[in-house]
């Protein structure tokens, strides 16, 4: 029996009750935060000043800062140009495992280039890169972790997208990746390595800006509470009572869900992310939320991250909003950008492919080689059917 269902069932009712209570409490706090949001948004300039004060006085922050638009306003998507290019990339990876006969790492990246208005099928590319042996080892000699390989994958996605850009592409060109635009600051990665990656992302964006290429990161079902954090700082500085229970972080999705009509976007905010040791030349990121649902009663918010320089040009923000909304509507029963889904479909590495690559690599060594060794007994037994 794979699970002791009787035992789980005994606790299921209790769990459901706890979840219901959590929801009730979260909704109570969301109501308080909504009132606070109304008050804060009534004077956007004051709200900005409060955030700027926090930026100069707090050692670490992760919150939203309103930019030019009223924080509670929402905006419909403008009309799309007849011709434009959408360039998306998504990747997957094989993480080295000490349990296997051979330790190796691989990243697999799918790229889709769609020239809207051409009537032609998108150009697709699949790039599979076996990592150098040095890349699968950390400086202390231990094997690279899931986070290490994911960082390499994220960076390669951006570099490969840059390499796809050519003067022949129909302008405007929007490049899209799944997830945050800045390389996610993974806690497991040594800070020096993370800083170097962030710097590289910054330089890549500078290049894109120079050649006039737009970029965006798409986050489906986002869980961040940047607006809650913003309102908490507002309450703290202005002497408003802040909702007390720190355990109940209300996601931005909950706060904005009923404030953005289907197809519309929120105001643009800047991400204020501050940690000790952050590099100076780090990508400055802004974002907006977009309701990709077409049913008012069931909002579905996605976060779209854009470089700060784009946030300063409303027509570019409008184009990104319209292009991503239209792409998400292709799969309208579960709205998510079609082009990103296809890039993922191209890139995903299945277990059978993992084993084929492993066998290919093993064939490069003579029988009994000291390098290849054996699978761990644990791994062998797990494979028994």
């Amino acid at each position: 029996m794979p699970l002791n269902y009787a035992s789980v069932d005994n606790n299921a009712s209790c769990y459901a009750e706890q979840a219901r209570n959590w929801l009730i409490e979260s909704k109570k706090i969301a109501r308080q935060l909504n009132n606070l949001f109304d008050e804060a948004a009534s004077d956007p300039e004051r709200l900005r000043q409060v955030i700027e004060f926090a930026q100069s006085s707090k050692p670490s922050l992760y919150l939203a800062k309103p930019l030019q638009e009223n924080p509670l306003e929402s905006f419909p998507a403008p009309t799309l140009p007849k011709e434009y290019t959408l360039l998306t990339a998504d990747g997957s990876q094989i993480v080295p495992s000490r349990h296997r006969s051979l330790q190796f790492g691989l990243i697999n990246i799918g790229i889709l280039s769609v020239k809207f208005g051409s009537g032609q099928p998108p150009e697709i590319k699949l790039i599979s890169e076996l990592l150098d042996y040095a890349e699968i080892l950390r400086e202390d000699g231990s094997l690279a972790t899931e986070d290490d390989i994911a960082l390499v994958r994220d960076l390669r996605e951006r570099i490969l997208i840059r390499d796809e850009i050519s003067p022949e592409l129909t302008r405007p060109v929007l490049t899209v990746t799944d997830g945050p635009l800045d390389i996610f600051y993974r806690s497991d990665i040594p800070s020096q390595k993370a800083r170097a990656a962030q710097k590289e992302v910054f330089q890549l964006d500078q290049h894109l800006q120079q050649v006039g290429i737009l970029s965006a990161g798409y986050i489906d079902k986002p869980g961040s509470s940047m607006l809650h954090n913003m309102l908490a700082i507002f309450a703290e500085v202005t002497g408003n009572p802040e909702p007390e229970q720190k355990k109940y972080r209300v996601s931005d999705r909950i706060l904005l869900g009923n404030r953005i009509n289907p197809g519309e976007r929120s105001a643009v905010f800047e991400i204020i992310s501050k940690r000790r040791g952050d590099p100076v030349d780090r990508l400055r990121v802004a974002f907006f939320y977009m309701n990709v649902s077409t049913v008012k009663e069931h909002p579905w918010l996605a976060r779209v991250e854009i470089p700060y320089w784009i946030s300063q040009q409303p027509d570019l923000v409008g184009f990104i909003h319209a292009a991503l909304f239209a792409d998400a509507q292709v799969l309208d029963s579960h709205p998510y950008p079609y082009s990103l889904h296809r890039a993922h479909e191209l890139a995903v590495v299945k277990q059978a492919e993992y084993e084929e690559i492993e066998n290919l690599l093993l064939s490069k060594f003579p029988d009994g080689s000291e390098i290849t060794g054996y699978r761990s007994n644990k791994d062998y037994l797990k494979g028994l059917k």
Partner: protein
Amino acid sequence: MSETQKSIPIGKLLRAENSNFVAGCRVRELDTPALGALVKVKLEDQSEIYGLITNILINDDSLVRQLVSGVSIPTEYTADNRYNRNLPVEIHVLTVGYAQNGSISHRLPPRPPLSLDELHLCNPDELCHFTSLNDQSYLRHILRLLDQPVEELLAAHLRQAKSAHESADDSAWYEQACQKMITLLRDDYPRLTTVLDVLTDLERE
């Protein structure tokens, strides 16, 4: 054989048994194969297996089903699903004979073709040659099909073969083929009536 008379590759074998086989092809290659067409697979030992296309199947998957229910699909994404995604069109073939050591038989081959063997569309010369042999006995294979529109398949095949034979100044072939069908179906009056209906339709074209 001139350049235009060469048989055209239209797909590769997915699975096979002695009496029938299935090949896969891309949508781009779909403009050549047609219901009732004579096709062949060349085996490694140089023998050839002949068959008639009995069905062409357009497969789907969960993404296509998702797209079908969508409000609008950009032309570029329709093309993506047709030409880029790995969904082969399945060509179902009824085995009707084989060639070995230079001679053609209308019996089933000793072995089926193997997966990834190449499927070719026979050119008009090959079609005329194969369908003229052995008193057109290959037609009996069509009548053993179950749960398929046999009469429609027959009509599609006879129309292509008739046209090829007439182009080769052989107008007697079609009459012989009709006679053969009548002989094969002499004990199945209801079916014979349907087949004769189809043949009448064909002659009116």
